[in-house]
């Protein structure tokens, strides 16, 4: 789960990381009130879970109330790379002497958190990493003993920060690690981490402030962080994806016309590949998950058919913990519930646990326009043909 910038900053602040003061707003009126609390000049920042909002016009400085209203009005409702702006963050303007970069990412390969720091923060950090990797200091932390003071010094000296910032940077990175560990983040990123030229708050961090905050939390750990679980912003998601999430399904919408349902991410990906090989274009990725019950299958059919582009649907099930009889029952139930709303053909391939039972349930149900296939290849070929007929008809 990705947090909005201001949610990330509020999380940072809870762990003592210095951030500029600010207030979120969902309307121009709220923005005016927020600016009253924050003072002028202030910055109006679009809150979207996508990079590049600065270039897209989603960040503006307001010197006074009129300018604030203008910017707030323009940014609220803006669409940035497909993400509508529902919320803005009114933040006290900062005086920036230098822009640094700091991040901690869950490094799956090393099985350890990776900390990265550079004095060359701002827009082009990926180019810095690519072209002048010596300007990007990195190290791994042993998660059992945690971040050590010497690691802060190593990063600071390796990146070449001025001597009087070595301790403040160490303190900053230590707190950033606290956020990463305590909040069970997959990523915390501060870009830019600024050296402020303005008034410096007292404390161990000297002139350092987090001017941006990108935080990705582990969805699987949200049960331990009820405050964070409440931060989800469903309004920013695609309607069908939201529907799928609410039903516990993993769904990604794609551009094609063949609805795909499988059990297990690997098998679904493989199904997409095979459908593509036979010349078809998948309309979605839908993993019904391990142990899919009948209701989950019914829900999944609803989600798939909510996409108007779908001309045919492929069920590709290889049962392990999932039982083919449950899948068959779910499909029968979906037809019973949705009845006439189902206008497209289905191809169903069932193998694995209780496949014999599953196939006989389908045979007995005699569902209209539901075809069975013996193999994955046969099923893919069949559904591609049916979709082409549907598109033509």
């Amino acid at each position, binding site marked *: 789960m990705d947090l909005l910038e201001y949610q990330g900053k509020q999380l940072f602040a809870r762990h003592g990381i210095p951030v500029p003061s600010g207030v979120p707003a969902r309307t121009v009126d709220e923005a005016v009130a927020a600016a009253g609390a924050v003072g002028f000049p202030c910055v109006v920042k679009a809150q979207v879970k996508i990079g590049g909002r600065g270039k897209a016009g989603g960040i503006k400085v307001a010197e006074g109330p009129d300018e604030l209203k203008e910017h707030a009005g323009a940014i609220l409702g803006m669409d940035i790379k497909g993400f509508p702006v529902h919320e803005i963050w009114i933040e006290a303007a900062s005086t920036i002497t230098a822009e640094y970069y700091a991040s901690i990412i869950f490094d799956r390969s090393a*099985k350890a958190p*990776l900390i990265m720091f550079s004095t060359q923060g701002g827009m082009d950090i990926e180019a810095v990493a690519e072209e002048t990797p010596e300007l990007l200091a990195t190290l791994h932390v042993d998660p059992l003993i945690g971040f050590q003071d010497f690691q802060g010094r190593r990063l600071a000296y390796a990146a070449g920060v001025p001597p009087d910032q070595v301790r403040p940077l160490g303190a900053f990175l230590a707190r950033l690690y606290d956020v990463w560990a305590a909040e069970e983040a997959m990523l915390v990123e501060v870009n830019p981490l600024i050296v402020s030229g303005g008034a410096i708050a007292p404390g161990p961090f000297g002139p350092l402030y987090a001017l941006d905050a990108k935080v990705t939390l582990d969805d699987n750990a949200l049960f331990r962080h009820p405050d964070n679980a409440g931060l989800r912003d469903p309004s920013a998601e695609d309607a069908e994806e939201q529907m799928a999430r609410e039903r516990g399904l993993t769904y990604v919408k794609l551009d094609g016309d063949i609805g795909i349902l499988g059990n297990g991410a690997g098998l679904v990906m493989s199904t997409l590949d095979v459908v593509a090989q036979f010349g078809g274009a998948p309309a979605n990725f839908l993993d019904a998950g391990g142990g899919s019950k009948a209701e989950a299958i019914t829900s999944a059919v609803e989600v798939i058919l909510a996409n108007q582009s779908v001309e045919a649907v492929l069920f590709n099930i290889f049962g392990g913990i999932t039982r083919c009889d449950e899948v068959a029952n779910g499909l029968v139930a979906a037809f019973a519930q949705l009845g006439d709303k189902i206008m497209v053909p289905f191809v169903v391939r069932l193998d694995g646990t209780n496949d014999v039972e599953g196939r006989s349930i389908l045979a007995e149900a005699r569902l209209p326009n539901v075809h069975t296939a013996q193999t994955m290849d046969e099923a893919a070929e069949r559904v591609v043909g049916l979709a082409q007929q549907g598109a033509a008809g």
Partner: protein
Amino acid sequence: MSVIVDKETRLCVSGITGREGTFHALNNKRYGTQLVSGVTPGKEGQDVEGTPVFHTFHKAVAETGANTAMIFVPPRFAADSILEAEDAGIATIIAITEGIPAHDELRVYNHLARNPGVRLIGPNCPGVLSPGKANVGIIPAAFFEEGNVGVVSRSGTLTYQIGNELAQKGFGNSSIVGIGGDPVPGSSFIDIVALFEADPETELIVMSGEIGGSAEEEAAEYIGAHVTKPVVGYIAGFTAPPGKTMGHAGAIVSGSSGGAEAKAAALEAQGVRVARTPTEVSQIAMELLGR
């Protein structure tokens, strides 16, 4: 021979009294796996169709000589159960549970790394099947016969698919190992490929990967340097939508790796034949083993 589970496996199932736990424990037992005990705190003294249940792994080990654990408890209890199994001296821990918090997996992995006597398979994996010997997990065993192809895979159902394709061409399996696709799997492709390389029964290794991470690229390096047996690769996700990148940091760390093409190229550069579909895996196996 086979790897990880066999006739010597003495299985204790954590979460045996749950619906799924009971179903799969008994399924494994029916297959011939020596199911010796189960663990459910608070239910010591009960039994599951004759298999005794204990409060703790420690007692299960002491009373029933369990040497292999299957973890079948809900995600919030799974890390604790894995750590308990290790503390109780169990050498092989197979964690089926899906949805364990990533930081839990990190703690568990780094803690277990201090104990060279323990092997964790999973979590979020279908388990390990050694056809004709033992099945620990949720792999539908009926589709697989004893044979000489070792299969290791990040994906559960895709493993069954590939095993099924191989079976249709007449291949059996030494073992089928699902390592799981979670952020921190207890065992990597490299760990399992090394076991198959050392296993006399295995003549061909099938390695089934998918997009994301760098486990396949690392395995490719290892295979090039250390593996003499033929290896067939498969990567799922050639046409998958690009996953979201985790900030600049994600882009910096992963660079151009992680895509299906890059993974396939890394494997092919080390002499691994890479199939584009599950069916092609069995076709390449035919060529390599000369049938």
